[in-house]
């Protein structure tokens, strides 16, 4: 009887898991293994496959385009992630104030985040376009920019980065804002009341109560934003195309062009592992941080 039940459970259990298991194995796990195999070859889609060992890995260490693309992604992440964290915190504080507009504010701040990268980038591109774009028009109308001058947002490297970062903060700040908001709402109101009674000013409350209580959330948000920023591709590809002169090309775009425009799959797969390792390390750090945060919560 017991044996029978065990066997039945094994069959039924596997029966339930199997469809998910198959898709997960083929499309999530297998590509990781297949990628290693591909990266040891000169591999083009038209069937030319030649084993070349570690050549692809040696090659990108000397590839100036690779180094610059990795540099762009890194520099973008180190600038955009902290900006996103600070903006998320400020917006969450706004949306957490006891005013009637609370829900409206939350909806407005998160609204851009539900748009696809195409819609968000497409809108941004048209807004930043010189001569006819909204942004220069706005700057003209408030007299910040003289009427005869145009800011070439998409054709000057520094301005292009500024446009990309402004758009990224606008488009993605909603998610970390919500994480901060739920952390703020978990702070019991008695704490504020007790502090007020003790004569703590609003500023003192912020710096000695609220921010320390938000520490675990801040760690989590910083890591999540860094991970998200290292995956940057869509908005840059659509707003500047990686230009001017490849000066804003991120790593994923270089991998994409190597694989699909130059048909060099092996080299692209090898470069992907640099990104893979960076992201896995960041994710591992994030998990450790999270476990620590969970432990702190229990105490």
């Amino acid at each position: 009887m017991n044996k029978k039940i065990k066997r039945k459970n094994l069959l039924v259990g596997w029966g339930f898991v199997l469809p998910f298991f198959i898709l997960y194995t083929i499309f999530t796990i297998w590509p990781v293994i297949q990628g290693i195999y591909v990266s040891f070859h000169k591999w083009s889609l038209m069937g030319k496959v030649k084993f070349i060992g570690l050549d692809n890995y040696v090659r990108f260490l000397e590839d100036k385009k690779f180094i610059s693309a990795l540099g762009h992604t890194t520099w973008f992440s180190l600038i955009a992630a902290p900006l996103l964290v600070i903006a998320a915190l400020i917006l969450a504080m706004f949306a957490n104030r006891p005013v009637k507009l609370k829900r409206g504010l939350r909806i407005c701040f998160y609204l851009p985040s539900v748009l696809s990268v195409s819609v968000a980038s497409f809108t941004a591109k048209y807004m930043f376009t010189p001569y006819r774009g909204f942004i220069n028009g706005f700057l003209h109308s408030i007299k910040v920019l003289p009427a005869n001058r145009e800011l070439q947002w998409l054709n000057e490297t520094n301005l292009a980065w500024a446009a990309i970062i402004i758009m990224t903060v606008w488009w993605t700040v909603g998610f970390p804002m919500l994480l901060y908001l739920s952390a703020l709402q978990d702070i019991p109101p008695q704490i504020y009341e007790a502090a007020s009674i003790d004569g703590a000013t609003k500023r003192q409350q912020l710096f000695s109560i609220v921010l320390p209580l938000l520490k675990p959330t801040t760690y989590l948000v910083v890591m999540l934003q860094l991970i998200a920023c290292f995956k940057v591709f869509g908005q840059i590809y659509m707003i500047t195309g990686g230009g001017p002169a490849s000066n804003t090309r991120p790593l994923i775009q270089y991998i994409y062009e190597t694989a699909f425009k130059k048909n060099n799959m092996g080299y692209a797969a090898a470069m992907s592992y640099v990104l893979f390792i960076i992201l896995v390390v960041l994710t591992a750090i994030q998990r450790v941080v999270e476990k620590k945060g969970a432990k702190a919560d229990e105490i």
Partner: protein
Amino acid sequence: MKSKAKRNPGSFILSAVSVMMAIIFITPILWSLAVSLQKEGKQITGILDWFTPPYTLKNYPDLIIGSDVTRWLLNSIFIAVITTVFTVILSAMAAYALAKIKFKGVNALYFYFLLGLMVPGEATIVPLFITANGFNLIDTYAGLILPSIAGSMNLIIMVSFFKSLPNELLEAVRIDGGGELTIFFKIVMPLSKAVISTVCIFSFIGSWNNYLWPLLCSMSSSKFTLPIGIPTFAGTYTVDYVKPMTANMIAAVPVIIIYIIFERQIVEGISMSGVKG
């Protein structure tokens, strides 16, 4: 409490600043919407001209009828719906077995599914393409749908929810001779409406907005989804903005409506995922 806050000038300034921020956040979307409602060829001299009437809805039928946009819209809807249905059913079935059926190797299996959290899809996109190509899935609907179905995150959310369902209830059905499928469809699924609808909303929006994979997987314009098709509308600086912004809005409006309707659930879902990472 509230009335006191209103009289406080500092608090009023903060409210004014937060409303300003909110306006800044929705301006690009409102601008895009306003442009899509303008007549083509309108002279724009100042920024307010973008927003002023006369408005017309004519651009929408003009663009939808007799252009590829219709096809992309239908592709987006079809792919998002099918992806969502399969994601929910397959993830829920697997999660049920992992949470409620005791069988050999269940823990190892769960660990195996957890590994997916560590795999960044962006970094395996090249071998994924080669794999899909090996199965002849490139430029097919199956290729656009299948890779996004089995995700670790949805599975974990469901497993943790199913674990909280009372075993006695399931045992009672088993003693009455009900099979696992009966339990799953008649008891577990109806009790899990909240978690299922959260997974539904997120996988629908995720599929609707998906960019990198459809960019690689769709070769012919007949297989494009809106996110892939719309940037092909990007004209030069001299072209009228009306048509591109109309296409833009056709892609944006459905998710904005879904978001407004399910806003509370989305916020709760995100707070939940934030706790679980």
